[in-house]
């Protein structure tokens, strides 16, 4: 197999990697906010359940969770295993990352001084105005560096879906390497991951700079 063909195949695989990456972000970023609200709910049973959820998501390997989402429905309900693989992957990744994002949001929201809420109350803002106008914009700035960390980890974590034999760049690299007895595909894949993360870091840094209009 020529270098060019290898590159071509891996590029196609990288497309699948990107799809998993963007879909996971799309779902987990807002879902993290929902999880946060559950976590701090005054309705204790809900907050306990959500706390347990976060604990499990963070306390077990993502690969194991993916395997469970993949094989669970098959063994439990006899569902057709080929039919939902992609759904299982996006679900597994999103639920896992939402737990991390929820905790990042919580740290950000809790660092907003109580005086901001008091000032908002005195000025007559209602609860949702206070959250969306006063609190959230400040939280975004605070959590941006931590979110960047998670996003970069996610780029690399997409490779875990090879465990449920989903074909994306990493799985392809493994296949090609085995078939052609060469490490070249791994090197190429590594370059892909690195360059993409470089871009991610650059975009996030640009966002951080954009948020620097105030201190």
């Amino acid at each position, binding site marked *: 197999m020529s270098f060019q063909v290898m590159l071509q195949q891996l590029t196609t695989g990288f497309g699948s990697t990107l799809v998993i990456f963007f879909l996971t972000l799309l779902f987990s970023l807002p879902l993290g906010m929902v999880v946060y609200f559950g976590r701090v709910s005054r309705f204790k049973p809900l907050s306990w359940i959500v706390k347990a959820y976060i604990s499990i998501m963070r306390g077990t390997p993502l690969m194991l969770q993916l395997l469970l989402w993949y094989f669970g429905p098959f063994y439990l309900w006899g569902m057709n295993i080929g039919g939902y693989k992609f759904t299982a992957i996006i679900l597994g990744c999103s639920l896992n990352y939402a737990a991390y994002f929820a905790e990042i949001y919580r740290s950000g929201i809790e660092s907003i001084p109580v*005086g901001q809420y008091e000032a908002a*109350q*005195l*000025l*007559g803002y209602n609860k949702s*105005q206070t959250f969306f106008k006063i609190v959230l*914009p400040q939280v975004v*700035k605070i959590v941006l560096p931590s979110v960047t960390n998670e996003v970069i980890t996610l780029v690399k974590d997409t490779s875990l879906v090879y465990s449920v034999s989903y074909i994306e760049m990493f799985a392809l690299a493994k296949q090609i390497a085995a078939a052609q007895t060469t490490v070249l595909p791994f090197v190429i894949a590594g370059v892909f991951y690195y360059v993409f993360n470089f871009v991610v870091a650059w975009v996030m840094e640009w966002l951080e700079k954009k948020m620097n209009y105030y*201190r």
Partner: protein
Amino acid sequence: MSTNLLEMNHIKKQFDGLQVLKDVSIHVEEGEVLSIIGPSGSGKSTLLRCATLLTRIDGGEISYMGKKAIWTENGKVCMPSKNEIKDIQSYFGLVFQNFNLFPHFTVMKNITDAPIHVQKRNKDEVYKEARELLAKMGLSDKEDAYPYQLSGGQCQRVAIARALALNPKILFFDEPTSALDPELTGEVLRVIRSLADLHITMVIVTHEMNFAKDISDRVIFMDKGVIAVEGTPSEVFSSSNARMKEFLGKFHQGEK
């Protein structure tokens, strides 16, 4: 008898078993400037926080313009409906010790956002009024600045403008100069004085004795959760109350 703008009767408040306010009653008439002085821990800031509904009272009752904002019935704290509370809240404004400006808003947005989005007033009108307020505060050139670009004194003046922009009937000040160095204190006190000249009703918790003496129609000296002395500035500052004398003695000592 005309109704008082603010009436607080038999206010009680405790934190973790510590009785911070023990049956305190105050009333404020329209146009009046009331200063509350006293040593740290005497309960003056708590009284202000109770008046502005930031802290919930344990007992007593608070009303604005004759409308009850909070009261107790058989030991239970009661408040009126959400709409009524909203209405009552629009009667008062509060200037905090540490300003609590919104750091991500420009000076102009800090002042205009609530009038536009809470009171739903006309944008152009609000901006025009805000510019007038900023001129009054000597901050006309700071419209587009962010709070971090301002000095403490400038921040506090913006905070005063922000509170005034909602046209409250009464303005509370919680130690408005305590976070400022002496140089910046003067500019804030000058602004508050100019408001007193306009007969804006104000309740000021302060450690600035000379200022309180000058500006107030009435002064309250609080000590250990009760009102120890109350009266005109000259009455209070020449009071024979032992605690008051001790407090003023310490203050004058510090001045020398």
